[in-house]
């Protein structure tokens, strides 16, 4: 069993073979699924907690504050302490709320983000499922979260929550188009929807560089639209704290609130991962065609470090403009999508198709 941090394919295959050799096939599949599920559960919690910490630190530095610095060195255990607090809090039941939907909503939100994470390649061979329609799957699954948000707002028996949920519904359905179309621009260039092949296709240059200006425009559009899709500032209308107190999750407490909270950060992680994978090469190191020595040095950095670094960069961009810009109004938000982003996207795809047709890309 060869273990290498550069390629997990053989490692995974070795486990796979060992399981199938010692167990009946059905049981082996169940064991495999359980292992992957547990790994993702741990990963989910760690990334969620880290992102909350990172956001607090980044926003603190932008606002001339120190941020959490009491629990552990540099406050790194602060979010863990917060999480334990949230776990121990009472789950308040709301009068006249729709109990079933109220309790179901946080799970739908968190399941949607869980499903999306499965298709993302974290490194060579580090991918739970490699669909041949990977991008389509992720877009489809990540937009399921809005169902949970709508249910949460509807069942809370609170007008503020309802307004937040309705805003969120309008917003996510609109911006879903831009997310899809900007990814489609790259699919035209890549010629495949499979994540592993998209990453392989960037071995001699990331798509953002290969695709000339249209790819860059698509990246910007994706960044804007995906920020809106994850309900983050400046598009955080669904939870606009100065207008709607907290929007759709006003009435939630304890672990159910934590689910919404974690799901928000995981959604951010997922869209950043997609941006990193589709535009910035995923786990593929930075390569210049012709510079063999340089490429060789870059290959020494493990793929998952590349992947995490790129994702962190995109996440930082998203945090940056969250803490800089004021919030948009709902009509401006929809104008921005339908009058600007969507037409630009459509033209952009045409230009990209033309470039690919003429073979002008690298």
């Amino acid at each position: 069993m060869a273990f290498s941090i550069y390629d997990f394919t053989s490692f995974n295959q070795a486990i796979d073979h060992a399981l199938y050799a010692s167990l009946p096939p059905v049981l082996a599949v169940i064991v495999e699924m359980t292992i992957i599920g547990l790994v993702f559960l741990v990963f989910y919690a760690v990334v969620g907690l880290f992102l909350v910490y990172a956001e607090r630190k980044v926003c603190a530095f932008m606002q001339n504050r120190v941020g959490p610095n009491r629990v552990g060195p540099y406050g790194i255990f602060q979010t863990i302490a917060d999480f334990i607090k949230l776990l121990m809090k009472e789950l308040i039941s709301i009068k006249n709320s729709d109990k079933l939907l109220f309790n179901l909503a946080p799970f739908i939100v968190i399941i949607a983000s869980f499903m999306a994470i499965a298709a993302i390649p974290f490194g060579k061979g580090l991918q739970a499922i490699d669909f041949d329609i990977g991008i389509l799957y992720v877009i489809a699954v990540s937009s399921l979260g809005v169902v949970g948000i709508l249910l949460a707002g509807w069942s809370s028996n609170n007008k503020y929550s309802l307004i937040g949920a309705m805003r969120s519904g309008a917003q996510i359905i609109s911006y879903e188009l831009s997310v899809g179309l900007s990814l489609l621009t790259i699919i035209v260039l890549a010629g495949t929807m499979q994540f592993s092949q998209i990453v392989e296709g960037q071995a001699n240059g990331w798509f953002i560089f290969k695709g000339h200006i249209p790819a860059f425009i698509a990246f910007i559009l994706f960044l804007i639209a995906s920020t809106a899709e994850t309900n983050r500032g400046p598009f955080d209308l669904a939870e606009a704290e100065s207008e709607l107190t907290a929007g759709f999750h006003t009435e939630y407490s304890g672990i159910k609130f934590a689910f919404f909270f974690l799901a928000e950060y995981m959604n951010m992680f997922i869209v950043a991962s997609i941006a990193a994978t589709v535009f910035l090469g995923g786990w593929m190191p930075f390569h210049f065609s012709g510079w063999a020595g340089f490429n060789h040095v870059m290959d020494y950095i493990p793929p998952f470090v590349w992947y995490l670094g790129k994702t962190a960069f995109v996440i930082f961009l998203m945090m940056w403009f969250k803490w800089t810009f004021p919030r948009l109004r709902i009509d401006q938000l929809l104008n921005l999508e339908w009058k600007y982003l969507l037409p630009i996207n459509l033209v952009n795809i045409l230009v990209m198709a033309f470039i690919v047709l003429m073979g002008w890309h690298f």
Partner: protein
Amino acid sequence: MKEVIHTPVPDIEEEEYHINMGPQHPSTHGVLRLVVSLQGEIVKSLKPHCGYIHRGIEKMCEKDTYPQIIHLTDRMDYLSAHINNHAVCLLVENALQVEVPERVKYIRTIIDELTRIQSHQLWWACYGMDLGGLTCFFYGLRDREHILDIFEESFGSRLLHSYYTPGGLMQDIHPNFQKRVKEFIKYFQKKIKDYDRILTGNVIMTERTRGIGILSKEDAINYAVTGPSGRASGFSCDVRKHYPYSVYDKVEFREVLFTEGDTLHRYYARMEEMRESMKIIEQLIDNIPEGEYSAKMKAVLKLPAGEYYQRVETARGELGAYCISDGNKTPFRLKFRSPNFSNLGVLDKISREHKIADLVAIGASLDFVIPDIDR
């Protein structure tokens, strides 16, 4: 048999629903309650409910002596504490016809303008926060600290100073006062450019507020909307210009006037006022004359029987103090015409047919301090 009439158009009134903004709501900055009638996201009408922080200050004044009343005025508009004090001090001084030393007038003017700047800084911070730009909040509060530090050094307190007394000041200014104020002006002239960079020039902010909540000049006059909110509509109402007190007649400054009267121009008006206030301070800070910090006053102040009125320009508009004295050491009746109460009256008119998000922006641009509404 009764005839059943089917109305083809559904009753609009039935589609409206009410939400309570406040008394605990982040955008009302205090315990103001707005009962907002909404249709979808559109504000159809709203009713302010006051009284959650009514402390009966005007009634309490009737049993307090004039120097004691000063301490109550701090608690009305706590962001313009000095200027509120100034109103009562001027009222008593004019009634008793006391000549206040020049030094006192200069110091009072400087401190009034510092108060105006710190009030507008906090307004800017909250305005940014209400629009969703949380970083503004910390920038505004950071710079406000500098003024509060100056205040603390000279008067020993940061929010409710009660520094002015009838006839002068509680004590002389700290020897560092002039130096630190000059340092602050230098510092803030740099920082106000940051304000412009993060919020004034931001396309989201300008597009969200332009043409929103337009208050016409006629309405501003009819509703007596004073202060920067009124001046953004072109209503020239600066008490410092029209009825100068202390040394406002000796300094050069511009009354910031706009004609548009929308939320964006109320924002511009306050930003410009901060710059004008800095200009006023710069003209005075080096020229504070030497002398006494207070005129000689009697131990017990008794205003001659009669009616007195004194107005000053606070950070939010015109504050009027109307006093009826029956010759005793306590006033018979003391009525404050507080700027926020009048400004609140116009909120319903200008926020109709706008969205909830606009209502928050309009509310932020009118800059309410709730204890001043209820008193």
